[in-house]
């Protein structure tokens, strides 16, 4: 089994990313949740898996039900990116609401304190 340069590079990057995630999770750094770690392992793990075992895409295509194996990979990637964007937008929206709430509390503190 011969390895191409891109396979080695992708594997190394994926390994480094997963290692960082596990390290942060074990050290219980702020904002590190199990869900976040799972997503990280799933995304980078899949990339490494596809890079090292390209034939895995045929299996993936068979599971998803799409004929072309590359199309299956692209579709899966799109779904993952879409989910990530959705999560990101939700987080931004929540932050925006929190900022508005803080701004409101600050502007009303004079009358709130009197109550």
């Amino acid at each position, binding site marked *: 089994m011969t390895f191409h340069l891109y396979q080695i590079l992708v594997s190394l990057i994926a390994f480094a990313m997963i290692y960082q995630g596990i390290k942060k999770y074990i050290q219980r750094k702020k904002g590190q949740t199990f869900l976040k770690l799972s997503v990280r392992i799933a995304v980078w793990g899949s990339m490494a898996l596809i890079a090292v075992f390209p034939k895995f895409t045929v299996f993936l295509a068979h599971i998803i039900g799409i004929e072309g194996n590359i199309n299956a990979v692209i579709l899966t990637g799109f779904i993952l990116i879409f989910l990530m964007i959705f999560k990101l937008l939700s987080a931004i*929206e929540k932050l*925006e609401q929190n900022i*508005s709430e803080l*701004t*409101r509390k600050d*502007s*009303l503190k004079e*009358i709130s304190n009197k109550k």
Partner: protein
Amino acid sequence: MEKQNKKIYIILPAYNEEKVITEVITEIQKVGYQNIILVDDGSSDQTFKVAKKTGVLVFRHKINRGKGATTKTGIEASKLLSADIIVTMDADGQHNPQDIIKLIKPLIENKCDVVLGSRLINPKGMPWYKILHNKIGNLITWYLYGLWVTDSQSGFRAYSKKAFTLINTLGDRYEYDSEVIHEVYKYKLRYKEIPIQVRYTKYSMGKIQKQGFFNGVQTVYKMIWNLIS
């Protein structure tokens, strides 16, 4: 001003309105309403200082948060001050304070919980593109939020205590106006639409932060996002 022992508060959400704000406040005071709350939404001009000089209650957002967030701050302030009826109106002078009485009358008589000022019942003098813009807004509001009203984007509205206690909006910007319609529908509040006069001046038409095409698209996006998120 207390009408039939009702404590009525007028809320003015303002952003960069230093040129007209004194006149707008004086005009409201002249028709007999003294409980006026102005919320300055982090203006970059002297709106806050100018409004303070008029003697009304003035609150200030340290950063700009949008019309919806500013109106909500005014409503929260009125709640803290034990208001019975709240009237919201634009701070650029486009709404006529003479119409306030028409808006609060059905609330005082307990005929409904929310009164919506409508520019489109009698759109005389309204530019055609504004009419079109508002009609599209009404259609989208009806489709997404389930309630048909003739002016879903009007900022001139009055709320009873029951209504402003129940209504809880999250929209910070122009989607706020449609979100109120959704809340009216959700809580099955009794509402009435009253024709209002709108004074489109060179000043109010020239303001860049008013609802334009791109703001409109952003508002629709926010409305859809509020439903799916």
